[in-house]
C-alpha cells in the first residue's frame, strides 16, 4: 500500500516535472545525497585511490636520483642466465659501448626502441587507459605501447620492434603479456640481446598511496638465456609533466653514424647530412641504392 502510494506520487511527479526522470523522488533523496558525498570524498583524494587507474604522467624513479643520469642506470644485463655465446656477445657489445662505438641498434638509428624503450627509459611516461586498452606513451625514446585488455594475441603475430601486448587484471595488478618481437631490439642501452622468441610478462602494480608504479618484468628467451629472469623498474608519479617531442631522425648528421658499429647494413642510413671538417652541409642527401636490401 505504501509502495503503491509512492508509485502514484512518482508517476505524478514525472508527469509534471521532467527533471524527476524516472526516479522515485520520495526515496531517492537520501541516496542522491549519499552518492554526492561519496563522490566528493573520492574527488578530494584524487583518482590515485583507484588502484586500477594508472592514468597520468610518470617518470623513471632511477633516472631522477640526484638529478643526474648515468648509463649504469640503463643497464639490465648484469648476472643474467646467459648462454655462453650470449655472454660473449654481451661482453663484446659492452666493450663497444665503453669505447663509444655503440652497436647500431634500432634505438640509435631512430627505429622503435622496443624493450629497451621502457627498461632503459629516460623521460616521462604518459598512461592513457580505457576498458579496452592501456596505452603507454614515452617521451624518450618516443615509444608507444598499446596493451589490449582481455584479448588474445593474434593467431599469426606480425613481428615488430614493439611486439604484441595484451593485458588483464590480476586483482589490482596489471599483467602484460608481450610476444611477437622482430628480434632486432635489445634489452638495455649496452645491447644485452633478445631474440624473436622473447616472451615478456610484466606485472604492474600501483602503490597504495598512488605515487609509485612498480613494473616487475620477467624475460623468457630460450635462444639467448638458459632460463627466465626477472627485473624490476619503478616509476614515480610525475603530475603536470609535458612529454616533449623527441624527433630522433630530425638531423641525420653523417658523423653521428660514423661513431656507430654496424653489424648489419640494414641500419646504415638512407639519408645523411654530409659533414666536412666538422661542418654540416645544408642539404640532406638521400641514396636509395640499398632499396632492395634484405631485412636483417
Amino acid at each position, binding site marked *: 500500500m505504501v509502495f503503491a502510494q509512492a508509485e502514484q506520487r512518482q508517476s*505524478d*511527479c514525472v508527469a*509534471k*516535472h521532467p*527533471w*524527476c526522470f524516472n*526516479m522515485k*523522488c*520520495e526515496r*531517492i*533523496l537520501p541516496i*542522491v*545525497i549519499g*552518492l*554526492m558525498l561519496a*563522490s566528493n570524498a573520492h*574527488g578530494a583524494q584524487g583518482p590515485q585511490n583507484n588502484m586500477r587507474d594508472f*592514468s*597520468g604522467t610518470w617518470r623513471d624513479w632511477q633516472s631522477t636520483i640526484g638529478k643526474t*643520469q648515468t648509463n649504469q642506470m640503463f643497464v639490465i644485463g648484469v648476472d643474467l642466465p646467459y648462454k655462453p655465446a650470449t655472454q660473449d656477445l654481451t661482453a663484446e657489445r659492452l666493450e663497444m659501448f665503453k669505447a663509444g662505438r655503440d652497436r647500431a641498434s634500432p634505438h*640509435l*638509428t*631512430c*627505429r*622503435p626502441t622496443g624493450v629497451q624503450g621502457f627498461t632503459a627509459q*629516460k623521460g616521462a611516461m*604518459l598512461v*592513457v*587507459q*580505457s576498458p579496452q*586498452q592501456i*596505452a603507454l606513451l614515452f*617521451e*624518450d625514446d618516443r615509444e*608507444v605501447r*598499446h596493451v589490449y585488455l582481455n584479448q588474445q594475441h593474434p593467431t599469426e603475430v606480425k613481428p615488430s*620492434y*614493439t611486439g604484441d601486448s595484451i593485458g588483464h587484471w590480476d586483482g589490482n595488478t596489471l599483467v602484460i603479456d608481450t610476444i611477437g618481437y622482430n628480434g632486432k631490439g635489445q634489452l638495455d642501452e649496452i645491447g644485452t640481446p633478445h631474440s624473436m622468441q622473447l616472451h615478456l610478462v610484466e606485472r604492474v602494480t600501483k602503490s597504495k598511496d598512488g605515487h609509485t608504479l612498480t613494473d616487475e618484468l620477467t624475460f623468457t628467451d630460450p635462444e639467448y638465456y638458459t632460463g627466465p629472469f626477472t627485473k624490476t623498474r619503478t616509476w614515480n608519479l610525475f603530475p*603536470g*609533466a*609535458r612529454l*616533449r*617531442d*623527441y*624527433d*630522433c*631522425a*630530425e*638531423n*641525420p*648528421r653523417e658523423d*653521428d*653514424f660514423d661513431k656507430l658499429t654496424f653489424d648489419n647494413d*640494414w641500419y646504415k642510413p*638512407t*639519408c645523411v647530412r654530409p659533414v666536412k671538417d666538422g661542418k654540416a652541409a645544408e642539404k640532406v642527401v*638521400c641514396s636509395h641504392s640499398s*632499396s*632492395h*636490401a634484405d631485412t636483417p
Partner: protein
Amino acid sequence: MKLRLGARCVIGGLLALATQLVGAVEAGTSASHEPFAGVWQIDSPVFAVRTMTGEVPPLQNAAAQVYHRHIAERKQGDTSFDSATWCASVGIPRLMFIDSPFEIMVGPQHIAFMHEWNWWARVIYLKGALSSSVPPLRRPAHIESTGIGILPPIENVMTLGPVGLSRGEWVGDELLVTTDHLIDTTLIDSAGLPHSDALKLTEKFRLRSPDVLEDRIRFEDPQIFTRPWETVVTYHRKAGERIHEDVCLDRIKTGEPAVRE
C-alpha cells in the same frame, strides 16, 4: 502535498544533476566525449591545403616565394626541402592531412592522438594536466648539437617541436584544441607550405555523425600569412581496426616514399 513533492523532486533532481556533473568534472570526460575514441582515417588526403573557399592560403610575399620554390623543386624531383623525406616528423598539422590512420584515446586529463605514421603521437593536455609554470621557449639542445642518442634535460621545459604543445577543453560536445610551440623545420602540407615558430593552430573537433569526425583548423602565423585563415578536414571511423607499427626509415630503405601522397 503536491508542492512538497515537487520541491523534493527539484532537490533530488538538482542533486542528481550535481552528482553527475561532479563525476564528469572529476573524470574529465562524459558519455558525449567517448565517441571520439577509436581509429580514424582521413576521407580525402590533403596534399596542398586550401582555405575554406578553396584558395591558396594568404601568404606574405617572402613566404609565397618559399612555397613556390618548394613546388618547383618537388616537380624536379628534389624534396630535400622536406625533412619528412628522411623520416623526420611531418609534425602537426600535417599529420592530420596525410593518408595514414590514427587512434584517439580519451582520458580524464589527456587525450592521445596516436598516429600510425612513424608511430608519432600527439598529446592534448586538458585543464590541470600541465604544471602552471611555463618556462620560456627554446630549442631542444639535441637538435643544436646532434641527432642521435643525446639525452634531453630532465626539467619540464616547454621546447619547440614538430608536434608542439596542444592544450584542449571540451566545449559541449566539441573538443577545442590550441597548438603552438611548433618548430619551423616542418611543413604544413606535403606541397611545401611553410610556417614559422609563431604558428598557432586552433582546432575544433566535432562528430558530424557517429562515424564521421570533423577537424576545423584555424591558422595564425603573422610571419607567414597576411591574415588568419581556416580549413576543414573529415575522417571516417575504422571500426574494429587497430593502428599498426609503421617505421618510416625501414620503408624508405625499400624504396617506398616517406609520406604516401
